[in-house]
């Protein structure tokens, strides 16, 4: 017993020493550079930035891929660092990759609404991808609200919609997002007053709402960092994800108002009453092959909110896959590298020729 105790002591002591040494290094070092894959900005319109990544193979699939990022966060979650970048993974697998990313809307962007995001930003990005590649076919891949925008655009343009439609953790039954529903209760939440007063929905407000979904999350994450300061890989991962999750974007006022009223209060997408710019969104008329990847432990877009989407999409070739992980670890980090990325590649490759 004494020898076993003596055997376990050095590693604990060593960890304690490393924690102190590396803790100082952590405070002194700069954060890792994220989203650095070589790219061109090919379209810049309001908060939209459309990137075209430089191909990494001599031969690419005929059908280009357009990633659509969630409007609340930055797109570098898809392009963290080499080896942990979905963009790099897709480029190395031979795809021609574009991404619709977002900058913070400016005060004068307050009037941008759902129609602008769906028709002008997603639709405009698709048109630009078609122009640059000379291909009519485009695969659309959306994450969270980026998935909602992709689905809305496809439901408006089913005749000339995407060649393939893949979405990750995309909500459709907003009444199942119980916390957000409770906090935006019409009896207490005056969205008109908020938008009319502030113009934009502040990023701090959105960040607080996301934090409150797991009230202990921030403290336990900091404890885990302290505990694992000796572990370089853990610290690197923590820094990347911590920076990304705190780097939230404000939302254009009208877009926030319409999201709250149509999607959250009326649950219009789920009920089949959703209209964008006066045109009905017809999910049942979407015919493109459809893939929905959801996360088993997603605390933001719960299974109840995302699962019904599959049944609403008209495509014959459609599939929902539930993978281990949470809302973010589904798409980035070691879990995503192992599970989601290969699944996406397998599904897309056959449909991209």
């Amino acid at each position, binding site marked *: 017993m004494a020898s076993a105790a003596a055997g376990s002591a050095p590693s604990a002591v060593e960890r304690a020493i490393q924690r102190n040494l590396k803790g100082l290094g952590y405070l002194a070092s700069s954060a890792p550079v994220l989203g650095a894959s070589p790219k061109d900005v090919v379209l810049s319109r309001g908060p939209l930035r459309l990137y075209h990544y430089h191909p990494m193979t001599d031969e*690419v699939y005929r059908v280009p891929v357009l990633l659509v990022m969630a409007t609340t966060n930055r797109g570098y979650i898809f392009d963290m660092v080499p080896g942990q970048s979905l963009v790099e993974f897709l480029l190395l697998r031979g795809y021609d990759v574009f991404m619709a990313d977002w900058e913070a809307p*400016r005060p004068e962007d307050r009037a941008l609404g759902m129609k602008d995001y769906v028709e002008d930003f997603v639709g405009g990005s698709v048109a630009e991808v078609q122009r640059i590649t000379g291909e009519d076919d485009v695969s659309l891949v959306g994450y969270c609200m980026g998935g909602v925008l992709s689905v809305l655009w496809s439901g408006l343009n089913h005749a000339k919609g995407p060649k393939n439609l893949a979405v990750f953790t995309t909500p459709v039954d907003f009444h199942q997002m119980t916390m957000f529903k409770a906090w935006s209760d019409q009896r207490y939440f005056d969205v008109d007053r908020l938008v009319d007063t502030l113009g934009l929905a502040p990023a701090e407000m959105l960040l607080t709402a996301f934090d409150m979904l797991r009230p202990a999350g921030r*403290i336990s994450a900091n*404890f885990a960092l302290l505990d694992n300061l000796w572990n370089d890989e853990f610290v690197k991962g923590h820094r990347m994800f911590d920076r990304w999750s705190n780097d939230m974007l404000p939302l254009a006022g009208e877009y926030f108002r319409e999201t709250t009223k149509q999607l959250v209060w009326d649950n219009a997408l789920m009920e089949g009453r959703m209209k964008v710019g006066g045109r009905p969104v017809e999910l049942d008329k979407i015919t493109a092959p459809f893939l929905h990847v959801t996360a088993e432990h997603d605390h933001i877009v719960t299974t109840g909110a995302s699962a019904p989407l599959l049944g609403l999409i008209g495509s014959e070739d459609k599939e929902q896959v539930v993978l281990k992980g949470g809302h973010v670890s589904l798409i980035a980090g070691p879990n995503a590298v192992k599970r989601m990325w290969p699944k996406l590649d397998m599904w897309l490759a056959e449909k991209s020729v």
Partner: protein
Amino acid sequence: MSDTPDFDPFGMARGWMSQWEKLVNEHGTELLAKPEAAQAMQAMTGAAMQMQAASQETSAKLLAAANLPSRADFEALGARLGAIEATLARIEQSLRVVAPDAAPLRPQPARTRKPPSQS
């Protein structure tokens, strides 16, 4: 169960933290989902907005008195610049259609790749 003494001070804290996190998350979300919590949160948001609106109004009056541009003036200027940018983007877009680039900046890969199952 091992009888090896744990020399890592973080060992015990780890277990405690895990239980605390579970407890706080469970009860915290339960509490925050109650209508009273939503009401309190929105009351605070409302008060903050009221203060912000009052402060904006006062600032605008003071700036106007000092003959200085207000936030609204800058926003209007920003909107005009945005409109000019949008017009330029439309012109650029039209030019690309009328006179597409003679040659791309980088050599473009062939779009002939086949999936592993077909190659």
